[in-house]
Structure formats: C-alpha cells, structure tokens
C-alpha cells in the first residue's frame, strides 16, 4: 500500500507543469544529441550538468534522464538514413536500416524504429517499477566469470554478421580485437600499443571507429560512384509508413529485444551496444529467413532499437536500488545526485520516494512525448535522401567531422577519423564486413579483463567458468549457438544425401 502511494505520489511530481516542461526539454535535447554522431548521452548530460545548478533536483534529474532515453530515439535517424550511428548503441541499426533506406524503405525503417523504441521504453519502465529489486539481485550475481561467459556468448553473434566470406568476417573481428587492445591495460596499468599518442591511453574511441568505418568510408566509396556515374538519389518505394506484413514481422523482435535490452542494461559495464548485438543475433537465429538479415530486414531494425531503449531503463536499476552506477551515463547521473546533495545508495527508495518515483514516472511521459515528436519528422527525414548526392556527401562529412571533434575536443581524433575512413573505404572495396570489427571492439576489452579478473580470483583455476548456474546456462547457450547452425545445415543437406544414396543403391 505504501509503495502504491509512493508511485502515485511520483505521478503527481512528474505531472507538475514545470516538470512536464523539463521532460520535454530533456527529450528534445536527447533527440538532438542522439542524432548527431559524436556527443552521446553521457557527454551530453555531463555538459549540461552545470546548467542545472539551482534547479529543483527532481526537475533536473527528470531532464537529464530525458536526455538519456531521448538520445536512443535520436540516434536512429542518422543510422538508417546516412549509415552513421548517432551513438554507439545504434551501430547495429545501420546493418539493416541503411539497406532498407537504400531500397526506398527508409520511412518504414524509421517508423518501426520509433514504435519499437516507444514500446520497449514503456515496457522497460514498467519492469523497472515492478521488478527493480529482483533485477538488482540478478546484477549482483554477475562476477568476472559470468561476464566473460556473457561476452563469449555475444561473440558467437559474429557469425550473424559475416556476410559472404566467413574468413573475411573473422579478419574483421581480429582487427577489432587489435584496436580494442590499444590503451592502458586495466590490470597492470601499463600502456599498450599507444604509438606515442596520448589520446590513445584511454583506448581508441568506439565512435571514431564507427563513424570512420561507416560514414566516412561510405562517403569515400560514393566519391568513386560519383565518377562512375552510379551515384543517384534514392526514391521512396511504396508507402512511407510500414506495411502490415512488416509490422507483423516486427512485433516479436520488439518484445524480445526490449526484454533482452533491459536485462543486459541492468548489468554494469555491459551496456546498450552489447544489448543491441544480442537482440539482433537472437532475431537472426530465430528468423525463418535469416538470409535476409543484413540486406534490409525490418526485424533487424526493430530488435536493436527496442534493445537500446530497454537497456536505458535497465541501467537505472543498479543506480536506484544499489546506489552504484552501471554505465557511463548513470555514472554521470550519480555525480549529479551528489551535486544536488542527494546521497544515492541502497536507501534511496525509502529516503526519497518522491524523487525516485517522480523520475521513473516522468519516463512514461517522456516516451509518449518522444513518440509524438519523432513520428512527424519521418517524412521530413525520408525526404532528405532526395538531396543531390553531392550535397548529401558534403553534409555527411561535415556532420561526421563536427561530431567527432566535439567528443574529444582535439584534432587528434579527427586524424584518426580519416584513418578509419580510409579503412572503411578499403573494407568496401575488398568486401570485408565492418560490423564484426565493431562487435569485437566492444567485446574485446571486457572479455580480456573479465577473463584475467576471474583467473586471478580463482588462483588460475579455469573451473571458475563453470562455477555458477549462470555460467553453465551461458555455456549451454554458446554450445547451442555454435552447434545449431552446423546441425541445421547438415539436416538440410540430409534428404539430398539420402536420395543420392538410395539412387546409387
């Protein structure tokens, strides 16, 4: 009963006109921040922190949270339309979103993404309200060994992304691992492969790699196409909205994607990008037409978009229930709490129910606002593709440059951008798929560190990787993920062989 009162009280807080205004403001700014490659939600919130001084803590937190989930709506548009994820967690959206746009179904992809974001976001908030505490317990069960197994399982998704040549997919992944190993090694504090560039001590920025490989690489390839005369504006085919069939195929991915996103979002350190990878790979494995993935399957947009919105809600679980941040964004929010004089901790739900529930409930309102805000923009965005290719090319390079500059605030990252742009161009010419590189880059660091953490704790005993229920479940999932495709291809080949044998006999 008390909880119910607290929840209702939270709605009263969230519905105050002033707070409605701040939800709106946060949602709008989040959309803008998400759309521009470069400044992600964590940096965006950090930059806005000083401005929130003097505001009511609740209002400020409502606005900052709005930026967080708003960015997950915004990051979609550039991913689908110009193959440039606005934030790292939209990288998976480009895999099918951009082919859809190129085939004239950009409007449908955008609409599915917006709806998926809304449904998964709302689902996530409901789970957050009802099951925050059990999920926090779940997060606590993930030690280094469990993380390693989770990352190993995520790596099996590479096979979902390889395209025509498995060897080239593997090369792409290995290159990603190499890039991931640049920077200071966490366990020993030693710098590795930094080549004397101080910025590399923190590792190579994920976003520079993504924007370089995808956006700049695509532009450079388009320069060639321009000379070949094959670079044409893309016409819209069919209706702007998604079709009934497209919707039916997306419902499952949205629901599963939202749930996967939430669960992964709860885990500290895993984050939105890994959530999208897992959601995508799951859908590809479940799909009746897996071969369509990567060539413009609407499910391939719905699943990761749902996952990254689910993960934002999940990320609030450790922050609100345990008082510890589970992601870059919530770490900044934790700093905000302290600045406002609120001690986040395990007692937060008891001590400040008005604040917690006000914040959570404002997210329902924010999601509705974001849907209303984003849907009308779809025709506008879709028309962007009509722009003359020469202009589009210039603008994409402009956006990519300003976005990357704004993250690092130094020109070093821009020169790195040119490097990865050149790599992206070569990848296209040599038909090497880029997504495995991104996946390996995201997973590589955590995989290595969690493996070494686990081995140190266990005193070098590898049994630690089967030492818990979660580990064993993950191991089983890895086996299934690796063996299933092989088995399936055998089964498919079987009738043919039987026929051949009976024919000869």
């Amino acid at each position, binding site marked *: 009963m008390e909880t119910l009162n607290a929840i209702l009280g939270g709605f009263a807080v969230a519905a105050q006109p002033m707070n409605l205004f701040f939800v709106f*403001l946060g949602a709008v*700014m989040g959309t803008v921040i998400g759309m521009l490659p470069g400044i992600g939600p964590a*940096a965006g919130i*950090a*930059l806005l*922190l*000083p*401005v*929130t*001084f*003097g*505001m009511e803590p609740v209002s400020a937190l409502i606005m900052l949270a709005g930026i967080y989930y708003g960015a997950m709506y915004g990051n979609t548009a550039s991913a689908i339309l110009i193959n440039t994820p606005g934030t790292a967690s939209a990288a998976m959206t480009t895999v099918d979103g951009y082919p859809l746009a190129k085939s004239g179904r950009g409007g449908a992809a955008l609409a599915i993404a917006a709806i998926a974001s809304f449904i998964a976001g709302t689902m996530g908030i409901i789970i957050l309200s009802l099951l925050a505490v059990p999920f926090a317990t779940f*997060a*606590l*069960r*993930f*030690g*280094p060994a469990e993380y390693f197994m989770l990352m190993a399982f995520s790596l099996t998704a590479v096979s979902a992304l390889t395209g025509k040549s498995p060897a080239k997919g593997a090369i792409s992944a290995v290159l990603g691992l190499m890039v991931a190993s640049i920077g*200071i090694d*966490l*366990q*020993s*504090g*030693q*710098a590795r492969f930094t080549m004397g560039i*101080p*910025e590399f*001590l*923190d590792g190579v920025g994920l976003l520079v790699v993504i924007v370089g490989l995808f956006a700049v690489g695509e532009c450079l390839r388009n320069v060639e196409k321009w000379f070949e005369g094959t670079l044409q504006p893309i016409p819209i085919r069919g209706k702007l909205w998604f079709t009934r069939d497209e919707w039916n195929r997306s419902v499952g991915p949205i629901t599963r994607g939202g749930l996967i996103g939430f669960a992964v979002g709860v885990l*500290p*350190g895993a984050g939105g990008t890994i959530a999208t990878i897992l959601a995508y790979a799951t859908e590809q494995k479940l799909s009746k037409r897996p071969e369509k993935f990567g060539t413009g399957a609407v499910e391939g947009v719905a699943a990761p978009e749902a996952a990254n919105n689910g993960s934002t809600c999940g990320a609030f679980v*450790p922050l609100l229930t*345990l*008082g*510890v*941040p*589970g992601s870059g964004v*919530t*770490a*900044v*929010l*934790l*700093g*905000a709490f*302290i*600045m406002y*004089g609120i*001690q*986040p*901790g*395990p*007692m937060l739900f008891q001590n400040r129910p008005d604040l917690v529930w006000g914040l959570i409930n404002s997210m329902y309102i924010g999601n509705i606002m974001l849907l209303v805000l984003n849907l009308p923009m779809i025709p506008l965005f879709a028309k962007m593709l009509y722009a003359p290719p020469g202009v589009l090319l210039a603008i994409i390079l402009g956006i990519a440059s300003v976005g990357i500059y704004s993250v*690092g*605030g*130094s020109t070093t990252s821009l020169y790195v951008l040119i490097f990865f742009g050149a790599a992206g161009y070569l990848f296209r010419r040599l038909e090497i798929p880029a997504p495995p590189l991104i996946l390996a880059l995201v997973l590589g660091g955590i995989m290595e*560190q969690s493996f070494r*953490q686990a081995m*140190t*704790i266990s*005193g070098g005993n590898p049994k630690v990787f089967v030492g818990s229920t979660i580990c064993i479940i993950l191991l089983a999932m890895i086996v299934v993920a690796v063996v299933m495709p092989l088995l399936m291809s055998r089964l498919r080949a079987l009738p043919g062989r039987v026929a051949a044998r009976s024919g000869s006999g």
Partner: protein
Amino acid sequence: MKVIQGLAAALAAALLGAPAAIAAGYPERPVEMVVAGNAGGGLDLTGRALETALRESKLFPQNFVIKNVGGAGGNVARSQVHQKKGDSHMLYVESNRIYVNRIVGTTQLTHNDVTPIGRLITEYVAWVVRADSPYKSPKDILDALKKNPEAVTFGVGTVPSNDQMNILRPVMASGIDPKKIKVVSFKSGGDLMIQLLGGHIPVISTGLSEAIEQVKAGKARVIAVSAPNPLPGDLAKVPTWRSLGIDVAILHWRGLFAPPGIPKEVVAYWDKALGQMVKTDAWKQQLEKHGWFDAYADSATFKKDLDAEEKIYAEILSDLGMAKGLKK
C-alpha cells in the same frame, strides 16, 4: 534552454557583484579553471565546490570558467596547462596523478612543471568487506596473508592508485611480499562495489565516501581507513592504520595548481585567499555535502608533501616493476 541560461546568468550576477580586488592588478579578468576530469567526477566536484565556496564567501572578485579536460589520465589537461607558461588567470585541479603518471611513464610532466598552489581536500581510502564477511579486522586478513600471500584477493578501481597503495603499504609494513598479493582492477567504483556486494571479491580498497551509504544500509563494513588520525563523528570507531600499529597514512587528496612561471605575488595571493576560504562556513558546507575532509596545505607545504609522496610512490612502483617512466 534559454530560460535556464537566463536564470543561471541572473543568479550569477546577483551573487557575484560585490567585492573589490584584494591585491592590486590581480585578478584582472575571469579565471579559467581546468579540471583534469569529466563533469560529475571527483575532480570536477572539487573544482565546482571551490568555485561555490569562493563565490559564497566573496573571497574572489572574479568568476571562474570551468573547463573539463578529461582524457589520457589527466595528461591532456596537464600539457595544456604546461603550455600556458606565466598565465596567472588559469588554475588547474588535479590529484596525485600529477606525479604518478610520470613514474609509470605516460608523460614527462610532473608537479615541477606546473605551480602547486594548495592542497584543497582529501578523501581517505578504506578496506571494505561485506556485512556478513568473516573478516572482522584487517588483522584477520593480514594474518592470513602472512601464512599465504595469495589467500585473499583484493579489488581496486585502477592501478596504480591510492586504492592500490592502501593495500600494498600496510601489507609491506606487515612484512609480506607485495609482489605476491593478488589485486584485481575493476574499471569504475560502481563495478567494484557491485563485485563486493555480489560476493565475488572478499575485500575492496576504495574511497570511504563511496562505501558510506552501503555501510549505513547495513550491506558493508569498513574495517580500516587510511586517515592519519581517528575520524570525527560516526566514523570514530573505524580503526586507522596507525591505531592498528601500522605506520601508514594515505591522503587521497585533490589540489590546485597553476601554469609554470606565474608571479610570486599571485601564489601569495592564493595562499592568503585559500587560507581564509578554508575557514569559512561556505567551504565547510561543501566538505560536509561531499563527505570530504579538510587537508588544506599552502603552496610551500604542498610542494614539500608532493616531493615526499612522489618518493614513496617511486620506490614502491619501482619495486613492482611498474615504474617505466623512471628507467629512462
């Protein structure tokens, strides 16, 4: 957005108007405060607390422009400050990375390449165990380590760090080989606390303020703290290393620096201004709010302490083979 900015501007104008310059000619214009960490982090909070306290106590007639320059463990910020030789209108907030980074060889610059202005605040590092842990005292752990140095695994945020020193120094003082001790790094303080609460690691060495809410909620216990003297208030019961007969005290401080080659008068100006500020209620409120402790040291003392700390760090890290920057 405009609305907020307007509000903030009005607020700032109302609060900043009054006092005239204390020393002739300085400060002439707003001072840029370079914070070597991202917004919301410990260094940033320190910079902003300093700004707030100076503003509220009206001890500084100009305002500050805070610029967050995280990146490369503070090396980016340091080289920016280093290049502004003689610029009195720039300040710089940093922690002990000011000398640690050169020892491990990620930069050439140390506190000798900038001007130390004053140590502002400190936190203390603590050994934290789960509430249901069998370890009641750090002695239990140290005794176990004496028998087998690999018996207990420690968790820290990063290495090298004060978190790590807070393990190695008591261990060395107890006659145990520090090279054999198992220390695992978890990237951020948040991950570290979850690993402890989840029971994946038996003891962590982390900032006291990060553990305090978990202690209040009955989920964790602090069994030792790196403070030189017993802490005030509720924390008086927590043993310090010295009270346990181990001569170790670690200040996890944050301090203020300026570019190299600034006039002596400006350093003297800040000695006076900060000396006054640390006595104000405005400053004490900031300490209270963030759970920090007063550790003010003026420019001369600060410099001396930095040299002494650097020596201890250099010795230990050389021992461990981590002092890559010193071999050259």
